[in-house]
């Protein structure tokens, strides 16, 4: 599987993402600098975690106005798989590719810990290697992960099965509506999520459940 990782000034989990993709797909991903205007022809485009532009103004807001975003939108429309993790998710909502917004955590503090994640929809290109309703341990590490969307939007997300992952009962770390941890777009080719599957791929990480997210995409494009 060919993949690419978009790097913004202030991205800081791009090396984690590059490493995970290479480990799991066996192919070195390409790195795309935010100032470029076209994307390589790949199967998966990843937006990594971090603090693009220091998270100043709003997380992901300034990155979402980068030159590369027009190409990203075109890729999303074309059906290319796009994965945004943490700051990547924030960028995707700021571009409008995904609905909703990620507000300051309800506790107002940055939170880094392992939560329990429920696979809310195992029928997406990103979750097909999991079982429906399966619960995995997964780390989160963010300041702005409190997912919000107006009521009609929420109804649509829930109704269409766009909620891919949820914080399992009692482990919502940030106050997200309906415990939402990750959502897809209506077409299902774009996933944004706050937890970090790329930091859960080898024994050293204390678990490998994150691998299956990437393996799902490999399977989906095969």
């Amino acid at each position, binding site marked *: 599987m060919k993949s690419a990782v978009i790097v913004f000034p*202030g991205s800081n989990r791009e090396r*984690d993402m590059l490493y995970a993709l290479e480990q799991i797909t066996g192919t070195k991903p390409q790195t795309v600098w935010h100032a470029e205007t076209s994307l390589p022809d790949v199967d998966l485009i990843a937006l990594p*975690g971090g603090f693009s532009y*220091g998270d100043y103004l709003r997380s992901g807001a300034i990155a979402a106005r980068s030159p590369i975003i027009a190409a990203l939108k075109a890729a999303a429309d074309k059906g290319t798989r796009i994965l945004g993790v943490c700051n990547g998710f924030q960028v995707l909502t700021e571009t409008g590719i995904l609905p909703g917004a990620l507000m300051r955590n309800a506790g107002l503090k*940055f939170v*880094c810990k392992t939560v329990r994640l429920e696979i809310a929809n195992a029928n997406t290109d990103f979750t097909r290697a999991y079982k429906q309703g399966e619960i995995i341990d997964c780390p989160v590490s963010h300041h702005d992960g409190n997912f919000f969307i107006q009521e009609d939007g929420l109804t649509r997300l829930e109704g269409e099965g766009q909620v891919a992952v949820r914080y399992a009962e009692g482990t919502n770390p940030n106050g997200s509506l309906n415990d939402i941890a990750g959502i897809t777009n209506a077409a299902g080719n774009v996933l944004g999520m706050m937890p970090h599957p790329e930091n859960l*791929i080898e024994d*050293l990480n204390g678990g490998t459940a994150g691998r299956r997210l990437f393996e799902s995409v490999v399977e989906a494009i095969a």
Partner: protein
Amino acid sequence: MSNAVEITPELIAEHGLKPDEYARILELTGRVPTITELGIYSAMWNEHCSYKSSKKWLRTLPTKGERVLVGPGENAGVVDIGDGDVVVFKMESHNHPSYISPVQGAATGVGGILRDVFTMGARPIAALNALRFGAPDHEKTRHIVSGVVEGVGSYGNSFGVPTVGGEVNFDPSYNGNCLVNAFAAGLAKADGIFLSEAKGVGLPIVYLGSKTGRDGIHGATMASAEFDDDSEEKRPTVQIGDPFAEKLLLEACLELMKTGAVIAIQDMGAAGLTCSAVEMGAKGNLGVELNLDMVPCREEGMTAYEMMLSESQERMLMVLDPSKQAEAEAVFEKWDLSFAVVGKTTDDLRFRVFRHGEEMANLPIKELGDEAPEYDRPSIPTPNRTPIATHDVPAPKDIGATLIDMIGSHQLSSRRWVWEQYDQLIQGNTKQGPGGDAAVVRVDGNEKKGLTFAVDVTPRYCVADPIEGGKQAVAECWRNLTATGSLPLAATDNLNFGNPEKPDIMGQLVGCIEGIGEACLALDFPIVSGNVSLYNETNGEGILPTPAIGGVGLLEDINKSMSISFKQAGEAIIVIGKTEGHLGCSTYLRDVLGRNEGTPPTVDLAAEKAHGAFVRDAIQAGRLTATHDVSDGGLLVALAKMAIAGQIGAHITPNADVPLQGWAFGEDQARYIVTLPAQAADAFLADAKAAGVPASQIGQTAQGDLKLEGSAPISLASLTQAYEGWFPTYMAAPDINE
């Protein structure tokens, strides 16, 4: 402000310069200095830059070792870890700024230490922080805890370095003077280390990073009306950290270093442009000429004085190879950083500063820098205290209840509330973050090799007996690294003390350094970098002497590292080291009985070394399942932490030869608790005996509670709740600014 300000005795005093220092200035300058020159002297000759009170003693520390490539004197120490890789690390304080403005003070402290590490050419891979706060019930403490933790977290998280360990302590001596000691380590190639020593005459000096503003210019001088006719608003002296700019600076510097353009590099930390330019020149035996008109400024009308003393963050100074200047510029532009050629190296050993074509300063560079004044301040050794016998200390009425109280106290409870605000995982190499004896981090790009990190000091021991306390700080750090299975390589220190002009405080400093030196020598644990922070006082009361030691260890096989948690029921629990029940200066004596008395436990360095080697070998041979060093609170507290971490209880038989309070809460040194499969216990004990290492089985792990023979069971759930409960409960009250 022009250079024509009259130099009055008040002005000299406001710059922190003593009459004899000013006399020396007159002699060196050959005339009355200009105000800019006075500012430069004050910056270079203050304690922070010149180490004038501590230099004499720091020189006694062991700093060499087979693996030490760069010792103290550079931005950070460099230690060989094999395969062409080196670890670069240092610790530094940001105490005063963190008290004035906790969030920004702590954040810029972290920013400063990260810059020290990447200035050397290393990519930061781990951060730790040693924090000391006032009494929990002091009115300012909660606000400072909240802000400092936010500041430490916000900078490291955004910059992208995992914060993997540290310490948090409370004591009334820090009520008016918190301590924020930040440690950072980075990874580089042995042949890719950059130093600050300028080389070559006539080469361009380049400024890179954020623009210069009026941040952090001395409070005292700024308050003085002569300098500040802009009366509308007293300018805050607080520096604001911009971790985003620092991340860009990191990437730009590492990219630039690869081009071969960098001849020398120095970050702008305390006393910014002054300190960095003087150090580069003085170390290289060169002069430096700066044209301040070229310095990128954020504010209008900045004077030479202000520019030379500004402590704006996220800035670097370097000497560049002129033939590579175009390549260098392309890197600066890619990362959107301000840069400018602001001067050149000269051969006249003068430090000359120009503004609007006028010479604002012309000073001898060596005397400003590496030949700055040095003092041999009078010191009085700390008087010996009277020891306390174990049987003179009352036993607890209910040992279970006492244990729960202790582990649920501000001193011994879990720091989870703190470290959950830190990104502990970023970079994907964290095998063990906070919560163990030492952090364990894989060497990036390496399958098996790992590094371990810990910071330690027990200030209540240091105040009672500086020499033993100094030794103990080193020994505990070394022991924490050992407990994970690693070989301790080298250390950094952060010496926090009160006013060195007081002979008793100076006595603490001298004593602690003596103890540190002795322990480092005995344990093959050289000091490769460090920092001294003096004048930590409020209302004339000094803080407890707090010489924090940060250590780095090496694991050849990270898969074999140990954690503290009990792994399964039915395993043997063995204590390595002698339990004599020393209760002087213990947590039990001070916090449970409210008695600040006695002598601290003695540190037997030969025993430390032997016990540590035995434990390390056992771990590397794959014989153990858990390891924990015994420190604050003694054996029973250590056992409780292992039980809580694994959610497995134990059946323990206390040693009847030692009074129960001493057995449970004594703080004898050189001890570890280990677990291993029950059937392997006899062979292990026999090997210990053969090695001359005291070891005895005290019980076994068991499902359920913590049971001490002869006492009621202690509920694991209650222990856990107490341990995890204190911090969040304390911090639940609102955070008030004033």
